[in-house]
């Protein structure tokens, strides 16, 4: 007997039909009788002193029920993912605003238009100050969020060949289609219920409680429908503001951002400036990697600290690197804070170290794939942090499988030529290029965090007399398919197909965030263990010879059915489990330590068609082999791969937040462009399933790797097609057409702090 729809099957998502037919309720669809609408007043200046805030006029306007400023805050005035918190809930009079878009006041009114009008009527007197915008200058002045150095071996060991390179990565937006949204409803007893589209209910909860000055238990968070996240929902947005307005007015308050506001209302991927020096022997074996990885953290800490560590830990690539010196740091500047985005630091450094591998291959006359194979990390090898890779590390196998995937035919349809519908290129003007890149990253939280997730599983007899299970966690379904994973795990462990995944809220224990590719491992693991406890109780109740559960039955040791499970459910069975992963340690002053629990590896090969004269490109195919441990749901894994590659195509070829004087110039989907279906390449993917020893079912995370090395592979392919340097992503048409090259604004010795940077001699 076999339970259908368990671990390993490509079952459809339970929320799929509602999502594709428009019935699913997203955060912005939330509604409550009598609700008010909240709006935020934001700083128009990147840096200014608030001399005064006058809300009198706004407060008297029609429909306006509350206008709140920092003076009205009942609890902590600062919040953050970082300790100690540094980001004001609202910027106060007499204090500074540190980025354009920083919240200054909030309004609740009967109608969104009334709230908008009231926001405009608030008079803020600013003394405009000089913004600090250059991250090198910031580091030179000591405006640093975190910096660290990793030193291993003897970085000054001489090498036969040394290649130096400078690389830049632009600021990418997560561009979730669903903007920030939530609804706060006061309870009769002075507490509050907040429905919100978030990545982490409990992480939000702690910060909300502190800022509201409320005791534990007075605030409950419920997951609103999440329309994409990718890191953008790890930091607070509307959470505290909506609760403050609801508590003040005693009415439900809904807040949601428009697209433009969303661009300043969430963090972005850190833009990066990277100076690399890579040494190798004549045989192509790496001797050393020296790197300086400078990130712009923006005005507040957010998760910059962890991103800095990731960029550094993975900054030499998934290779055997005997000697390394890596400086990684985030500057504090007057731009919108940067923080979590899919790939989390590993994307930026991958673009640089893979560019270096291609330079080395060219210098040595080696094939780019051969040099990667020659250096590929193997199980048991040590990272530059000294940590041994104890789990699956099939890097060489991934490279081999990826290179063998069939290449795409040349474009048959004119729409598939570079420039697509624009009709600029004809086949004669197009050249093809291929590029290869590999990457890796950690799963789950690192550097000694106590990372855990909680699940509650209940098994009972339904009204129809059949056994059915309910799974409750606080883990956020953000589109990645966690609900499907939990469903499959519960079915497998309980032998029951009728499983309901309950709505996530904070009435159950912490599940941590849906980030760092961790939820299948963490929450999936918690569901597995809780379900196993329930299953054990069923077997106990059934008594010998009961051995196992499947397809709704208790089985004997031969697998023959003894009785329906429902027979043993006169009393429901409920168990809860808190699943912790193996502890990690911090990094010592030399950047050494077993900071990560596990690693996932990936290889990408990109094929591009380029019109080099016109500076136009189209990615024809991205082929990939990905180390997934075990695919709980292969269809969903392929979904993650395609989605991540779409974002990789975006980062490589078009997506960038453009700042001028610290203000975002393209805060819309008109001007912040993301790939359309015509930009999306064919994806050819193979999954490598080598079970990870520590992981539930051996399953690694799968969300981030598709975006780690796909941009690097696409850039390499564009270089191959054009012969140009293209050391910056997104590659601009100007660079593709050879009109400009990206040059460093500062000279930095790879491995050293940019505090020692000097300005290059003027050109010409």
């Amino acid at each position, binding site marked *: 007997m076999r339970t259908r729809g368990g671990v390993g099957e490509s079952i459809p998502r339970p929320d799929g039909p509602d999502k594709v037919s428009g019935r699913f309720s997203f955060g912005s669809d939330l509604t409550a009788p009598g609700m008010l609408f909240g709006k935020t007043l934001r700083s128009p200046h990147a840096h200014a002193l608030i001399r005064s805030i006058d809300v009198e006029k706004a407060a008297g306007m029609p429909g306006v029920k509350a206008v709140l400023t920092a003076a009205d805050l009942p609890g902590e005035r600062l919040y953050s993912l970082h300790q100690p918190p540094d980001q004001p809930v609202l910027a106060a009079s007499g204090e500074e605003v540190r980025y354009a878009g920083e919240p200054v006041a909030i309004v609740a009114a009967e109608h969104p238009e009334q709230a908008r009008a009231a926001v405009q009527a608030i008079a803020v007197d600013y003394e405009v100050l000089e913004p600090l915008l250059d991250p090198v200058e910031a580091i030179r002045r000591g405006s640093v969020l975190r910096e660290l150095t990793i030193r291993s071996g003897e970085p000054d060991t001489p090498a036969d060949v040394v290649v130096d390179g400078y690389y830049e990565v632009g600021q990418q937006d997560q561009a979730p289609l669903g903007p920030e949204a939530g609804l706060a409803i006061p309870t009769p007893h002075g507490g509050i219920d907040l429905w919100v589209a978030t990545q982490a209910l409990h992480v939000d909860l702690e910060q909300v409680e502190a800022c509201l000055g409320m005791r534990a238990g007075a605030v409950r968070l419920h997951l609103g429908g999440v329309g994409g996240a990718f890191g953008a929902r790890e930091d607070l947005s509307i959470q505290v503001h909506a609760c403050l307005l609801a508590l003040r007015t005693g009415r439900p308050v809904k807040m949601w951002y428009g697209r433009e506001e969303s661009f300043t209302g969430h963090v972005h991927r850190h833009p990066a400036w990277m100076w690399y020096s890579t040494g190798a022997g004549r045989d192509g074996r790496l001797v050393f990697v020296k790197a300086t990885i400078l990130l712009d953290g923006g005005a507040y800490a957010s998760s910059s600290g962890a991103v800095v560590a990731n960029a550094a830990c993975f900054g030499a690539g998934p290779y055997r690197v005997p000697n390394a010196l890596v400086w990684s740091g985030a500057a504090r500047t007057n731009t919108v804070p940067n923080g979590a985005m899919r790939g989390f630091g590993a994307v930026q450094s991958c673009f640089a170290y893979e560019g270096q591998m291609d330079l080395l291959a060219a210098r040595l006359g080696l094939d780019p794939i051969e040099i990667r194979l020659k250096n590929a990390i193997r199980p048991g090898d040590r990272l530059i942090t000294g940590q041994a890779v104890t789990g699956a590390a099939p890097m060489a196998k991934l490279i081999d499988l990826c290179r063998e995937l069939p290449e795409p035919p040349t474009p048959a349809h004119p729409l598939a030529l570079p420039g*697509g519908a624009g009709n*600029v290129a004809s086949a004669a*003007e197009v050249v093809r290029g291929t590029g290869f890149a590999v990457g890796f990253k950690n799963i789950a939280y690192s550097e000694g965090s106590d990372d855990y997730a909680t699940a509650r599983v209940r098994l009972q007899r339904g009204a129809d007399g059949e056994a059915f299970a309910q799974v409750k966690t606080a883990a956020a379904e953000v589109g990645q398919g966690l609900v499907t994973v939990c469903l499959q795990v519960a079915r497998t462990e309980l032998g029951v197909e009728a499983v309901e995944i309950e709505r996530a809220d904070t009435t159950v224990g912490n599940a941590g965030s849906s980030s760092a590719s961790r939820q299948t491992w963490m929450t999936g693991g918690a569901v597995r263990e809780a379900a196993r406890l329930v299953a054990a109780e069923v077997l106990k109740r059934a008594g010998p010879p009961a051995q196992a559960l499947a397809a709704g039955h208790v089985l004997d040791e031969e697998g023959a059915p003894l009785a329906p499970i429902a027979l043993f459910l006169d009393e429901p069975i409920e168990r809860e489990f808190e699943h912790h992963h193996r502890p990690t340690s911090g990094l010592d002053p030399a950047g050494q330590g077993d900071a990560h629990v596990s690693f996932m590896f990936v290889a990408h090969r990109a094929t591009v068609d380029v019109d080099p004269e*016109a500076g136009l490109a189209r990615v024809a195919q991205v082929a990939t082999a990905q180390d997934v441990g075990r695919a709980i749901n292969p269809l969903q894994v392929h979904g993650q791969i395609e989605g991540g590659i779409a974002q990789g195509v975006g980062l490589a070829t078009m997506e960038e937040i453009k700042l001028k004087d610290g203000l975002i110039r393209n805060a819309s989907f*008109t001007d912040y462009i993301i790939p359309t279906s015509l930009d999306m390449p064919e994806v050819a993917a193979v999954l490598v399933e080598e079970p990870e020893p520590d992981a539930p079912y051996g399953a690694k995370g799968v969300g981030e790797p598709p975006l780690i090395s796909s941009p690097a592979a696409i850039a390499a392919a564009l270089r191959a097609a054009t012969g140009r340097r293209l050391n910056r992503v997104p590659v601009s048409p*100007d660079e593709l057409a050879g009109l400009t090259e990206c040059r460093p604004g500062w000279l930095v010795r790879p491995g050293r702090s940019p505090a020692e940077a000097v300005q290059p001699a003027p050109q010409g």
Partner: protein
Amino acid sequence: MQVSVPKSLDAALGLLAEDPQAVLLAGGTDLMVAINFGRTRPEHIVSIARLPELKELATGEQVRCGAGVTYTRLLERVRDRALVDAARTVGSPQIRNAGTLGGNLGTCSPAGDTLPSLAALDATITVASQRSGERRVPFSGWMRGPKKPALEPGELVLRADWEEAGPAQVFLKAGTRNAMVIAVASLAMVVDRARRTVRVALGSVGPTIIRATAAEEMATGLLDEGGWERPLMPTEAAQARFGELVAAAARPIDDQRGTGAYRRHVIAVMARRALQRTGAAP
């Protein structure tokens, strides 16, 4: 905000005569974006989306295209490649099903994709108001500036008309995405062999659509020499010269969508290709 939905063209013109500040709504693909951005908060909207009078589309030697014709219909019926290829690049299928030629003329952006083609086809725009009846405006007089169409208060666009110009025509558009992108630079070229005219018009490289007259003259000279009825095979040098003349006509700026340097570069590339392709066409 008041929304009027007149049932006839006369009724619409009457509403506009009463309230010249009223804003017209056709497909709404520009207007609703502007409203959502908070750039405009019209007090009175007059919807002309369903007026049958604006939907006429007569093809043949003489083309008449009503202001309310959508890109999708235009693509199905019109034979002038310059306009067809321009319409094909507009937005996505949804936008092409809703957006209209009249809306593109009404928005009057230098990045409006049909506008270089209408210029190269030497189209005439017919507008109407209750007070003065119909008035005809040659395309060259349509754009008084970016987003400033030659419309007087109370007027709306009825149609555009032009003479079908044969197969030697192209439209090219460069952008940073392969579809649904605002033009960074665009170019329409029409070689009307029967009438012995060449017109080249540029989009997104200046405040309005720009006619590259020196380039037009050069191409005319080449065709005079080689014969209008024969394929034109311009030498590399001639192509390069043509590209330079087009680039010299451009007045591009740097903005968040592209640099002036790239615009000038790519408009020359597109010009060379346009000369080649129209030259090869019968």
